[in-house]
Each structure stands twice: as structure tokens, then as C-alpha cells.
């Protein structure tokens, strides 16, 4: 027992704590099957009012519209249930009601309630695989390379106005906080195809270079920064090398 030095115990305890914490932090969330990746249940007021919650499938919507149409022009927040959507809003042409009016998409009326207020996430395998068949593959998420699929799908960039993506293609090299991790490359050019500046700036990322604080992987995994999209809808973080291109798999 005399050889049991407290400093060694302390070091061992500290390293165990750190590795436990990190294991927790860097646990990537379990991915749902491709047909349900990006499907969210919206239940702010529904259950409280004895109505079934809304099941919203991102893949069906992003096939036709850019992220920007809903999350910028129509004002949907990135976080589920953070947008104060009410039935009154929808009936007055706001939020879902901007399209679900019987013209752009099926109307919001008695007989169609359950098309959205479906209650539970159900498998959409058949319809999804039918849709996915002709589209380019990706390893994770919906297993569709949505960026490459754009040429085929031509999602609508703007709903209200005749706008085109900003010609802004600056690439950012983001140095990793950790030793031995190659930098992440951020292409503005790919993001402006689907998003608007204001989706990310200035709330999620500052606009002044290198002034965004706490921009670390552990916070991204909490749904902050890139994690606002790249955990649940856009290709998930499992695809490390897509952002850190110099990272190699062990041979």
C-alpha cells in the first residue's frame, strides 16, 4: 500500500473523468432509418388540445423547396416546437398555411387534418425508397446526396420573390481545437444554394471573422452551430470527412 502514490491516483482519476466525459460528449446520436431521418414530431399545443401531434417529414419538403423557404421566408425556427405556430396562423396564411392552402399544397381543412396531425412517426419506406431510387447516394442520414440531387430535384429557392442565391463562395478553413485533427472546410457556396445569410448570421455564427465563441465539436453535438442542421436534417456528423476532408480512416 505504501507504493500507492496519491499523485498517480489523482492522475488516473482525472484521466478516467475526462475520458468518461468525452465519451459522453462525442457519442454521436443513433441514426433513425433513412426514411425517418429528419422526421420531426411537432407538439406544442396539439396533445394539450386533444389533437394528435404533427409528424413533419423533411425529405418530402426539401425535395421541392430549399431550407430557406421555410426557415427563412416562412419563419420556422430550427428547433422543434420553438416556433409558435397556431391554427389561427395557419388559417391566415402563415407558417404551414403559406403553402397548405389548397393552391400550393393540400389545404388545411377538416378532412385533411390527419395527413399532418398523424400522431406517431410511421415507416415511410415504400414511398421513400421509390423517391430515393433515382437520386445519388450518400453514406448517412437519408442516404441521399441532397447537394448532388439538386440538379434533378430543382427545389424552389424562393417562395415570395424572384430571388437567386447570392454569388458568395468564400471558403473558410476552420482550425480544429484538438491536436492532430485536420481543419474543417466550410464552403459558403454550397450553403447559399439552400440557405439565406440570415439563417446562420449573426445569431448562430458571428459575421466578424474568428469572433464566434465556443465553436467546438462538443457544442455542435448539442445542436448548436453546425449541429442546428447537421444532426437531424442535413447530412449527420457521422460523415466526419465531409467537413474535415484531410481526415483519413485507419487503413
Amino acid at each position, binding site marked *: 500500500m505504501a507504493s500507492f502514490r496519491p499523485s498517480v491516483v489523482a492522475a488516473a482519476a482525472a484521466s478516467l473523468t475526462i475520458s468518461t466525459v468525452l465519451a459522453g460528449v462525442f457519442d454521436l446520436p443513433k441514426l433513425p432509418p433513412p426514411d425517418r431521418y429528419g422526421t420531426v414530431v411537432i407538439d406544442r399545443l396539439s396533445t394539450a388540445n386533444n389533437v394528435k401531434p404533427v409528424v413533419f417529414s423533411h425529405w418530402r419538403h426539401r425535395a421541392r423547396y430549399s431550407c430557406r423557404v421555410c426557415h*427563412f421566408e416562412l419563419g420556422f425556427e430550427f428547433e422543434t416546437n420553438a416556433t409558435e405556430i397556431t391554427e389561427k396562423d395557419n388559417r391566415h396564411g402563415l407558417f404551414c398555411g403559406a403553402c397548405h392552402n389548397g393552391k400550393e399544397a393540400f389545404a388545411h381543412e377538416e378532412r385533411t387534418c390527419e395527413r399532418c396531425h398523424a400522431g406517431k412517426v410511421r415507416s415511410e419506406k415504400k414511398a421513400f425508397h421509390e423517391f430515393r431510387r433515382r437520386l445519388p447516394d450518400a453514406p448517412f442520414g437519408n442516404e441521399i446526396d441532397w447537394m448532388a440531387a439538386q440538379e434533378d430535384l430543382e427545389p424552389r429557392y424562393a417562395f415570395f420573390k424572384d430571388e437567386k442565391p447570392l454569388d*458568395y463562395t468564400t471558403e473558410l478553413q476552420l482550425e480544429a481545437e484538438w491536436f492532430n485533427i485536420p481543419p474543417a472546410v466550410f464552403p459558403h457556396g454550397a450553403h447559399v444554394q439552400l440557405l439565406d445569410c440570415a439563417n446562420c448570421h449573426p445569431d448562430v455564427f458571428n459575421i466578424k471573422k474568428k469572433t464566434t465563441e465556443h465553436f467546438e465539436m462538443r457544442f455542435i453535438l448539442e445542436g448548436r452551430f453546425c449541429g442546428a442542421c447537421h444532426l437531424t436534417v442535413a447530412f449527420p456528423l457521422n460523415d466526419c470527412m465531409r467537413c474535415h476532408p484531410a481526415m483519413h480512416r485507419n487503413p
Partner: protein
Amino acid sequence: MTRRYFQVAMVVAVVAVLAWSTAVSQTFGVRKPRPKPNEYGTTVIDNASTANQIAAVEFPHWLHRANYTCRLCHVDIGFGMTANETGITEDDNRHGMYCGTCHNGEIAFRCQEGKMAEGGPRSCDRCHSVGLEIEPKNDFYVFREGMPRERFGNGIDWVKAEDDRLIAPVDIIESVSFRRPKLVNPNDEQLTANEITMPNIIFSHQKHTVWNGCELCHPQIFGVTKGATTYTMQEIFEGRFCGGCHSKVSFPTDDCQRCHTEPVV
């Protein structure tokens, strides 16, 4: 000695864990929720109200701007551009200043004892309504029904609404304003963006002077010497310069391409 190292190691570990958890609880890296169209531009004024056990004032800009120009309240009547900086008192209002300029029973309903919430005549809590369940007399959704749509802010294209004569904001009230000639065909200003490839801005004096005159912006917010006032988008996001109105009441700075219109060649 080793005991000392152990203690130091433990302190460092505790501090590290604490720092970790505090950082996690902060709000960063997420979008701030956008106000809903019916709430956009609604300002809570609470100079002395809650301190005096009265509900704070909920001021809807949409309802007022439908009838009056910005300039009338923010220049002639003297309201500041930031909530609570004006220091309005009940005494002022009862003597025909600030809200009392119009809310005198002649132009608009007056400041009168009694609370709607208690079945009294419409008065105090029609404005002092924060936290009270008061059904507003004017329903935003009904008002918006007939207005040209815009995607941000109140979801109303206010400029078009005036062009289409759906609204006719009053610019002059005899007791507080003096008549002056309107600025005729003022120049557009070309503003160059700092960021490479960011489209430049064409600032329309014409559109701004209709409701603001010259005096709402010059010389305090923007100097009058060309090129002398320099500012960044960051400062605008922080509520300065254009951000004094845009993102609070007039269309928000989210709408990048509404100002950054001129493609760089």
C-alpha cells in the same frame, strides 16, 4: 508534497468541470426566436409602471404606423428610438405630451380611470396591458387580411400599402408639428459593402423621407457629410445606424437582399 499535488489536481479538475457546465448553460450558437408577425414591433414600455404596481404598456407599432408617420411620434412628439429611454410619466400624458398628444379623447381614446379587466370603461389597461388578458380592440389578423403581403416583420408591405392608398399615415398634428415643404426627389445613395462579393446597397432617400423626413436620421444617427459616417453590419445588428429601426420596427435585417441589391461586377 504529493498530498499538495493531489489537492491542486482536484481543484483543477473541479474548476474544469464547473467551467464546462457553465459554458453549456449559455445561449450561443443557436438562432434567437423570431417574433411572430402580430408581435413584431410591439414594444414594452415600463419606465415606472411595474414599480408603481401598474401593468407595463404594450405598444403595438403596427397599429400606430398604420395611421401616423414615424416622424410624427419620433420627432415632433419626441419619443426616443429605444424603449424606456423617453421617460414618459402619467403627468406628461395628462398634460398632452407624448401619448397624451393624441390620447386625449379627441384624436384617440383618452387616459381615463377604471380598468377594462374589472368591467370599467376602456382606459388604463387598454395600454397598460402587459400580463393582463385584454382582448385588443383591433385584431392584427383582421387588419393584415386586406394588406399587401411581405414575408418579414409584420408580414405587411407597408410601402406598398401606402402606394395602394390602403393606409394614409398622418404626418402633421397642428399642436405639435410645423408645416414644412416636402423634400422633392432626393438622391439615392450608393453604399459600398466592405465584404468582397457582397452586393452593394442603394439607399433610397425617397422611400425613407416619406415617413421620416430628414430629421429622424440626420445629423445624429448619420452625419450629413458624404462618406463621413462609417459603420459595419455588426454595428447594425447591435441596433445602431440602420439597426435603430430595421429589426425593431421596419423590416428586419434578415432580409439581406432587400438592401444589398446591387450585384458586384
